[in-house]
């Protein structure tokens, strides 16, 4: 019998169960009573910013081409020439996969083929199949994907902001790499990355839906055993060594402007921050989510004024992004009067840093956030996102709910004062 660690959230009427299998694989099950849909997800703590590491099979340090984690995601979701999306589709299950800076996940959604879905998901992720031919072919498809992103103004404005903030940290590189960098990817390099990062101790499985917890863990374990002959003999699990270079404190460039054929210019401002860890990362997310409403949403005099001046049509977004190796705030907006907008936001932030937080408004916003957390629990995708976020930081699943209920105006105030003018960058696409 497996031992479970159970996280309960009474506000949401939801439980999340966690267990660690013998081989080090973490399994999370979020029970959602009454919902038809079930989500099964297999993930690895490996994404685009991890390019420098110790090869687990040779113990040698490696540097691999940019975009390989994403390339691997494409290739792994394939079996002997058949695309995984297609294989799932044939059993009536929809599936997808994506790569981020620090994790890669493969998942399926089903109503009544949960067992078949889990079987196929584990089979796919556990049986890599890379050949020279299928690597060459994928370079064509990913080439089209990269070109699609190159034409996307939102994508360009965001990555340019990252490039302005960071000097050397790999977060400044496109997740998919470049057409040039992916041309260096070979089947052997893919196997090296696979063997290292797709070892069970670096991975996790997440299930969300109305499932039986014990049965599900049994099903997962049985299927994992099919592909790991030494599963029962396993004595120790070896940690994966990843090297992520810390960026220097200063920004790289104050401003990047890019011309693109767009009618609506876009602005992305970034404040580079000092790195924090664990609960502090989740706390920054909650704080920024509140700041976004408290200072930039339609409720604010700032928005009203910008709206009446014809500068803003939709509110500015204010988001925190970070792991233990990078940390920043990104502010996104669009306007036909982009320079006025840029100056207005900049001056406004400097102004609110000096002022007291409006307590009444703060309480109203907090009330909304509590309502949102309840409403969001009607959406199963929110549950798995919360699990991923917290497992990467090794904190309790419902840390965000806990933090939200205890947040104060002082938390807001002190965070605003971490936004420094010297660490501010501007990216514009016009």
């Amino acid at each position, binding site marked *: 019998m497996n031992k479970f660690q159970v996280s309960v959230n009474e*506000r949401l*009427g939801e439980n999340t169960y966690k267990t660690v299998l013998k081989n080090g694989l973490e399994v999370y099950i979020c029970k*959602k009573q*009454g*919902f*038809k*849909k079930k989500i099964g997800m297999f993930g690895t703590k490996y994404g685009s910013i991890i390019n420098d590491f110790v090869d687990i099979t040779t113990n040698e340090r490696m540097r691999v081409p940019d975009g390989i984690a994403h390339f691997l995601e494409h290739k792994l979701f394939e079996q002997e020439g058949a*695309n995984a*999306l*297609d294989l*799932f*589709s*044939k*059993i*009536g299950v*929809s*599936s997808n996969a994506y790569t981020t800076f620090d994790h890669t996940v493969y998942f399926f959604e*089903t*109503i009544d*083929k949960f067992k078949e879905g889990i079987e196929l998901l584990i089979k796919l992720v556990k049986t890599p199949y890379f050949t020279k031919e299928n690597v060459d*072919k994928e370079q*064509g*498809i*990913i080439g*089209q*994907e990269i*070109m*699609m992103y*190159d*034409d*996307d*103004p939102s994508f360009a404005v965001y990555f340019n902001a990252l490039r302005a903030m960071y000097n050397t940290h790999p977060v400044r590189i496109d997740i998919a790499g470049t057409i040039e960098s992916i041309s260096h990817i070979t089947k052997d390099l893919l196997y090296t990355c696979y063997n290292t990062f797709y070892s069970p101790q670096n991975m996790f499985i997440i299930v969300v839906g109305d499932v039986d917890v014990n049965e599900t863990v049994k099903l997962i374990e049985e299927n994992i055993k099919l592909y790991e002959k030494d599963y029962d003999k396993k004595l120790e699990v070896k940690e994966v060594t990843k090297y992520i270079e810390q960026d220097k404190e200063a920004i790289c460039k104050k401003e990047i402007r890019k011309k693109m*054929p*767009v*009618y*609506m210019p876009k602005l992305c401002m970034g404040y580079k921050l000092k790195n924090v860890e664990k609960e502090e990362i989740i706390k920054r997310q909650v704080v920024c989510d509140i700041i976004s409403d408290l200072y930039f*949403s*339609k*409720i604010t*005099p700032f*928005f*009203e004024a910008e*709206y*009446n001046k*014809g500068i803003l*049509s939709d509110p500015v977004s204010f988001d925190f992004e970070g792991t233990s190796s990078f940390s920043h705030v990104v502010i996104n907006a669009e306007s*036909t009067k982009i320079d006025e907008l840029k100056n207005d936001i900049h001056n406004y932030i400097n102004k609110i840093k000096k002022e007291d937080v409006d307590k009444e*408004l703060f309480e*109203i*916003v907090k*009330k909304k*956030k*509590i*309502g*949102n957390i*309840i*409403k969001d*629990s*009607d*959406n199963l995708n929110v549950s798995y996102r919360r699990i991923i976020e917290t497992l990467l930081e090794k904190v309790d699943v419902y840390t965000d709910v806990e933090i939200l209920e205890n947040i104060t105006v002082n938390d807001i105030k002190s965070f605003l004062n971490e936004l420094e003018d010297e660490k501010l960058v501007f990216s514009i696409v016009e």
Partner: protein
Amino acid sequence: MINCYKINDEKFKSIYFSVNFTMNSNEQEISQNAILASVLSKSSKKFKNQSEIEKYLNNLYGANFDVNVEKFGDLYNIEFSIECVNKKFLPNNEDVVKYSLKFLHSMIYEQDLSFDSEIVNREKEYILDRIRSKKDDKLKYGVIKTEELICAPDNFSVFLYGSEEYVKNTTSAELYNRYLGMLNSSCITVIVSGNLSGYDDIETEIKDIFSDANSKFSYNELDYDTHNVNGEKNNIEEVNEKSDTNQSVITFGLRVKDTTCDDFFVLNLYNAILGATPSSKLFQNVREKESLAYTVRSRFYRFKSIIIIYAGIEEKNYEKAKQVIEKELEDMKNAKISDEEFNASKSSIIADLAEWKDSKIALSKMLISNLFVYHNTNIKIETMIEKIKEVTLEDVVNVANRINVEKIFLLGGETNE
């Protein structure tokens, strides 16, 4: 009198209220409707500006209010919606439902009717921005342009936010008339979807609050597919538009002849086999086999009996992509569809339909769309699943032979390095 429908499911924690005004609208009216929806969403007699609205909504535990415009084929729909949490789940069981409903009513019926020109001008700018930026997303624009090419002069061919010319010229007086048009010449549907436990009288309550609403048309009095196109088009027209981007977009505009409402199920399956799933012919051949595209899909338009195929490609591969797509369309006509393709597509549609039960909003959208197609019969998802199950390969091939390509569109890239 209004049409009011309830969908109750206690697994949810919140409730979605949707008030729909569905009406006939030509290009000028569409342009005015877009401005109107935008103006109405920003203030009312009681709430002077967006900030007051937001404050009120935040106090209702962040109720989500939205005014959304949409085309149901040749008809135009303005939806006023609000989503709020059931009292069971709120601190001290605070009940926000009545306030949410009254709020929704006030945003429609308790408006400042002077339509102040300063406010109207600001919203006109907002809509003009939407129109002018429609080319910013190429794939989307490729699809919009194809809708326009294949459906002109039907109202459906007009862009969702109308045209620059009409928006610019709209006056406050015209907007007031359009407001009256919306209130008095629409089919009005109210849908409540979510956890209704503890709200047994919700229908009565809605009818009380919306007692001044009057639905002029019933579902069979409004025609969502006027199909003004004269005669059949046997020649395929190729249209080319230059664009200063890295990647190009190719689209195919297809028309289905002589459809009945039961063809909906067959066409859904046809579309799934052709290009709506990863096991589809287009995904397998254009993307997986030929590496021509990352995105390739086909979309079926229930209200207009058309299908649009779209893909992001390199311009130099235009002829090749065209050939591959044409071959797949021929294969559909010649019944070159494997059992595997057929069954996979069927189960994928059934799974999608079943999944809608997990979304309050999807359930509400499905319901209103069925009301227009089936005139008043309230078709359940289970019925739709049964109908999909009954579709045979022969049905699909029959429908395939009633489908013709009318337009092929290339939005060309010029800056290939």
